[in-house]
């Protein structure tokens, strides 16, 4: 199957032609399959946000191409506009984009721009609000009267309501407390299971995405440094540490146990998996004479 999103030798310069010119991303070859959940991780300033803004045509590459379903997204203005709805992008700290009088209207902004009918808008707004756990009674409140976490959810719902084929979230959990973080990630996964859309999740925190993604892409200084299943990526813990990233504690423990000779698989990096693996080891040992 052809990838739903693909980039070819993507390169972006900021402030091109001024003394402040610098390369934010360079030589990015990336592809995402339909239905995949991909984590993008990288140190601050590594070009993650710059990269994802290319995927829905908000930034134009200085060179290279972005393909959506095999077609260059800049091939025509109408197609670029269409892609905006197909590739939903939730920005870092999206709560600052809220502007309508009511939460309902704010979530409806995207669908309205898609020129959907009133009923369709109503269905998608209520559906999206439910996915992110925004209660019915909040819908008629002003978005400015909500708490930070609630605003965040409303902003995410505003993008989900467009029912995109690809949902990209830039650090959706930044600045939230642990339970808020967990519940947002859970909501996103639930949305994925219900719609089967592709999810691209940008984050700083390995622990957070380790358990939720199929694939991890590591950015470093504007380049893709690693790309693979979490278990593959976590094996390079030394390299990751050298660029300021950590690997989940559990995968370190598993690695150490492996070095001590215990038969623990390399794909163990969450507490759940570790528990299972350790019980299996003990079960095996008990079973032996």
């Amino acid at each position, binding site marked *: 199957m052809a990838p739903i999103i693909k980039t070819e030798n993507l390169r972006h310069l900021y402030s091109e032609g001024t003394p402040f010119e610098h390369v934010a991303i360079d030589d990015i070859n990336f592809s995402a399959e339909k239905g995949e959940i991909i984590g993008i991780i990288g140190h601050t300033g590594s070009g993650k946000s710059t990269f994802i803004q290319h995927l829905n045509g908000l930034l134009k590459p200085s060179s290279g191409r972005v393909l959506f379903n095999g077609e260059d997204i800049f091939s025509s203005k109408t197609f670029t506009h269409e892609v*905006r709805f197909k590739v939903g992008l939730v920005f870092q700290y999206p709560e*600052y984009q*809220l502007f309508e009088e009511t939460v309902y209207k704010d979530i409806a902004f*995207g669908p309205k721009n898609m020129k959907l009918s009133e009923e369709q808008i109503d269905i998608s707004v209520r559906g999206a609000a439910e996915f992110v756990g925004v209660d019915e009674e909040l819908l008629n409140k002003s978005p400015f009267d909500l708490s930070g976490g609630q605003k965040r959810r409303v902003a995410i719902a505003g993008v989900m309501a*467009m029912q995109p084929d690809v949902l990209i979230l830039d650090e959706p959990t930044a600045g939230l407390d642990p339970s808020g973080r967990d519940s947002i990630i859970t909501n996103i996964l639930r949305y994925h299971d219900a719609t089967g859309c592709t999810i691209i999740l940008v984050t700083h925190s390995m622990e957070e995405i380790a358990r939720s993604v199929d694939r991890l892409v590591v950015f470093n200084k504007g380049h893709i440094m690693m790309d693979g299943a979490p278990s593959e990526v976590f094996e390079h813990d030394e390299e990751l540490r050298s660029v300021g990233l950590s690997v989940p504690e559990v995968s370190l423990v598993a690695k150490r146990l492996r070095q001590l000779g215990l038969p623990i698989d390399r794909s163990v990096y969450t507490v759940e998996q570790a528990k299972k693996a350790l019980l299996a080891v003990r079960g095996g040992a008990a079973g032996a004479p």
Partner: protein
Amino acid sequence: MLRDVTLGQYFPGDTIVHRLDPRTKLTLTLIYIVALFLAVDYFSYAVMIVVLAACIIISKIKLRVILRGVKPLLIVIIITGLLNLFYTKGEPILSFWIIKITVEGIKRAVFMILRIVMLIMGSFLLTYTTSPVALTDGLESLLSPLKKLRFPVHELAMMMSIALRFIPTLIEETDKIMSAQKARGANFETGNLFQRAKALLPLLIPLFISAFRRADELAVAMESRCYNGGEGRTKMKSLHMAPRDWIALFLGALLLAGMIVMNVYKI
């Protein structure tokens, strides 16, 4: 995009032009502007062009960058030029229908355009080579005699430096909100005037809210560091006139005197 607005942008550098005291540069810019208006003839204009060119070369700012500042005013410049071209009395060298072009008209149009362009370039050279903070510090220091007349010089300078400080932040913010709304299909580029004005709401409302929030936060931050106006306030980087400043001012005075003489004797 928006970020590329260069109005008042500072290009850091380490040339003698950059290192001059901001008071010197402000004074010299004033002298330059006055001298520009005193220039009346070929020779005096030639002198001014040489002076400007020398300053630009020494500052190592690319000519292309400085000319970019002229671009937004191109229409004004062209209209001024045309008005001078058509409405100057004198010996017509070309005339058809109601339009008469005279030698004097051509000369005046060329001088006028030169004057405006050089005025803009000179002022931009000042803002390109002086950081906004230095600029307001210089202005505050130059205007400080007005304090005697109870004119709030310090407050004005503080307001100016805060405004200058927040212009890039606001531009960045505008960029960000614009992108976020575009990601939800907002369209800022097409439609008639009314539609476009309406399309700006999703941009302006969050922008205003965040500007007020920032103002609030800044006020609290300043008060919690005991800011209470200019009284008795000292500066981390106090301004010092170096020998090069006095030399530059002397050259400036020389230029001004020369231009006055040339103006009087119509050279």
